[in-house]
């Protein structure tokens, strides 16, 4: 992801905006092409998946034509683009629902988890990063860096299982798998799909508390990974800023040290930091695949894993496209931020 970040330069003119939009569109098309091709090389017969293996050759042929599989590949691809753009990813074999409905149902759970994790990542990673940059080379700087490196080295599924063992089974401090205690499930009607919000809307405070309680462990784990990344980025941004002449000038002028750090220096890394935060949210979507498996968290990651293990290709490719599209969106968003918020970019 970082490569894209480096590439994103401030947008100055309308022409540039158009160019970026074209780039996003072609990238999205490429994304569709890849998923389309993956769908073609799968050893599973898509017709058989629909008609069942008892169907007669006539029924089979009819279904094949109905699915457009007799057309040349490029035509099939065009149809595929049309379908995806209108939100039609086909029907999931596993759930018997349209894939788009499934994704809309499960995505809020992932959003809730990854969002909370990002907040935790920001609250922990950025202060620690600033601290490391200011006290560069100190013992604490080294400790922080090592903790950060651990975050890049620990297999998240393993850490999750270990944490569950410790905090749930042994210490009994935190709840076990799931988004909420199971007997609370199905009580709150989904409005946003984000349980902590829905439970407040429904006035079910017990469920709200329970949901928050269930969020802590998986969100903290993902948050740790996010903070490891944010810490490293913040540290390097801050070190660069603190080397600048204006910082020296401010210090010479007698501006208080905390103001120099939290005001001047941090203010100047705000834009790149926000971009990095947006990107880290994207990586968390990815991390959620493994975390959700460990915590039986019914989000997009678990949906994707289940579909994968059951060779439910429509669901797999649908989820892939959605996550890819979110990634693209995040990149676009960070480009946009430069334009709106960075005065130098105007």
């Amino acid at each position, binding site marked *: 992801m970082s490569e894209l970040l480096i590439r994103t330069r401030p947008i100055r003119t309308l022409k540039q905006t158009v160019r970026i939009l074209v780039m996003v569109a072609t990238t999205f098309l490429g994304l569709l092409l890849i998923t389309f091709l993956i769908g073609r090389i799968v050893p*599973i017969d898509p017709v058989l998946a629909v008609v*069942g*293996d*008892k169907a007669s050759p006539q029924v089979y042929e009819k279904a094949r034509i109905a699915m457009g599989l007799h057309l040349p590949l490029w035509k099939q691809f065009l149809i595929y683009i049309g379908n995806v753009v209108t939100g039609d990813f086909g029907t*999931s*074999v*596993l*759930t*018997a*629902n349209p894939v788009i409905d499934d994704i809309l*149902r499960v995505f809020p759970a992932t959003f809730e988890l990854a969002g909370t994790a990002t907040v935790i990542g920001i*609250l922990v990673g950025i*202060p620690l990063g600033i601290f490391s940059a200011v006290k560069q080379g100190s013992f604490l700087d080294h400790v922080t860096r090592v903790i950060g490196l651990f975050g890049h080295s620990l297999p998240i599924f393993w850490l999750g299982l270990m944490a*569950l063992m410790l905090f*749930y*089974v042994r210490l*009994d*401090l*935190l*709840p*076990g*798998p*799931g988004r909420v*205690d*199971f*007997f609370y*499930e*199905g009580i709150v009607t989904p409005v946003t799909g984000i349980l902590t919000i829905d439970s407040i809307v429904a006035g079910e405070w017990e469920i709200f*508390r*329970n949901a*928050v*309680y269930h969020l*802590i462990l998986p969100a903290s784990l993902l948050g740790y990974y996010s903070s490891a990344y944010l810490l490293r980025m913040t540290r390097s941004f801050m070190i660069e800023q603190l080397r600048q002449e204006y910082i020296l000038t401010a210090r010479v002028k007698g501006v208080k040290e905390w103001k120099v750090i939290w005001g001047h220096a941090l203010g100047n890394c705000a834009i790149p930091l926000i971009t990095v935060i947006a990107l880290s949210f994207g990586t968390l979507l990815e991390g959620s695949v493994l975390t959700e*498996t460990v915590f*039986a968290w*019914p989000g997009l990651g*678990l*949906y994707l894993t*289940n579909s994968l*293990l*059951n*060779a439910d290709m429509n669901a797999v490719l649908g989820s892939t496209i959605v996550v890819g599209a979110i990634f693209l969106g995040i990149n676009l968003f960070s480009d946009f931020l430069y334009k709106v918020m960075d005065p130098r970019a105007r």
Partner: protein
Amino acid sequence: MKKLFLFVFALSLFVIQTTHASTPKDTLVMAFNIDEIISLDPAEIFEFASAECAANAYDRLINYNVDNVSEIYPGIAESWDISDDGLTYTFKIRKGVTFASGNKLSADDVVFSLRRVVLLDKSSAFILTQFGFTPENVKKTITKVDDYTVKIIVDQAYAPTFFLYCLTSTAGSVVDKKEVMAHEKDGDLGYGWLKTGYAGSGPYTLRTWKASEIIILDANKNYWGDAPKLKRIIIRHIVGSAGQRMLLEKGDIDMARNLTADDLKSLEKNEDIKIQKRAKGRVYYLGLNQKNKYLKIPEVRQALKYLIDYKGMEQTILSGKSTLHQAFLPKGFLGALEEIPFSLDIEKAKALLKKAGLENGFTLTMDTRSAEPVTSMALSIQSTFAKAGIKLEIITGDGKQTLTKYRARRHDIYIGDWGPDYMDPHTNADTFARNPDNSDDAKFKSLAWRNAWDIPEMTKKADAAVLERNTAKRARMYLDLQREHQRISPFVIMFQDIEVVAERANVKNFILGPSFDSNFYQYTTK
């Protein structure tokens, strides 16, 4: 910075003082692997978990006593008559039954439900169509006499219990015609809707099904029989034994359904947990493809039967979860053979291989679903085969992949399990001992066909047994059939499944029947 830490500290205090709530008194929460469910339409249901759901949400025409399978008792059909020629069955339908929707149940619904199974022709339809019903003739064979009488004509004079047992299976569930047809689309008989919907009259109604996540059942207020004791049943999909056990020991669930032998053994020490067991009809076996040049040699087949560490597996990886069984009819069925002729005997196997001129060994592959206990069994078999010089390569895949290959007869050895579809012995004889057409494009594809085992003689014997109306004589016929099967078949039948449920000590009367479609929640209390 300090403020932030204080805030985090306060937040954690708020959380930590939250006490551990146990599950509510009127709700049963269980962890169960339900990712195999692809449909909840009784005309299609063919998986364990969905069959269990349907058993509690739908009523069937006839039921059998779970403690004594030979005792059949009325369900939606109050009584029945069989004509002297053994072809016509007349059912009196129970009055005063209403569906959960409020609609009254009558002969129309029964006829509709049975015809629907035949017309939709999904994977479980053969349970009914084997009696000669076809989409073309159902209008004549399954008919309404009056509002509370149904007449069914079968194509041959089968043993009566055979047909009656088939009606006790999920395919014999009665669905609400009005409700289903209200959701019909393009003449699909409401299939698209009922796949995820509900239109039954059972003790529980389906509130929610989210595939691979959760099923919630609520007590049916309109239920005609004994009112269900618990208000709600929550079935949560939890992968893995360890996860289920954690939740059970912590009291976050009342029941765990998929624990491994190891976890069950550890739970025996826990006083808060009790363990309930029931032998199920499922058998574990190896299918030896007769298209393979080694496996078609009788001595090789025989040798392989001596190269399995039956006792070792039973005591370790399967401990308490399966019991040694080597015939195709599981214990509990009419005519089940309980003799155990085979055990691990490497010398004997080597001698047999030498006789076949294969003492220098050869290589075979085995398609294995990557799920316990099958993977562990495969590894054990691999090591005992090796002792006689047979190199076994294990090819793992998910259930669908291995099954697709098996169905196409492209395997060497397939390790799998087979669960009976209904409680009559013909269900297993039909698949293990019948293969009317061994050609690649045969219409009837039994397990014998999948292993390319051409057995015209044995097929005839199995056909004769299903038409025998004298029960004792019929049982003897099956015993003989199984002995012969044990001797020559390309099936290494190894174990019979035992279903084990671990539950909190306060859970009572969770009824485990001999089959998954006879596990009942109705009488369960907490």
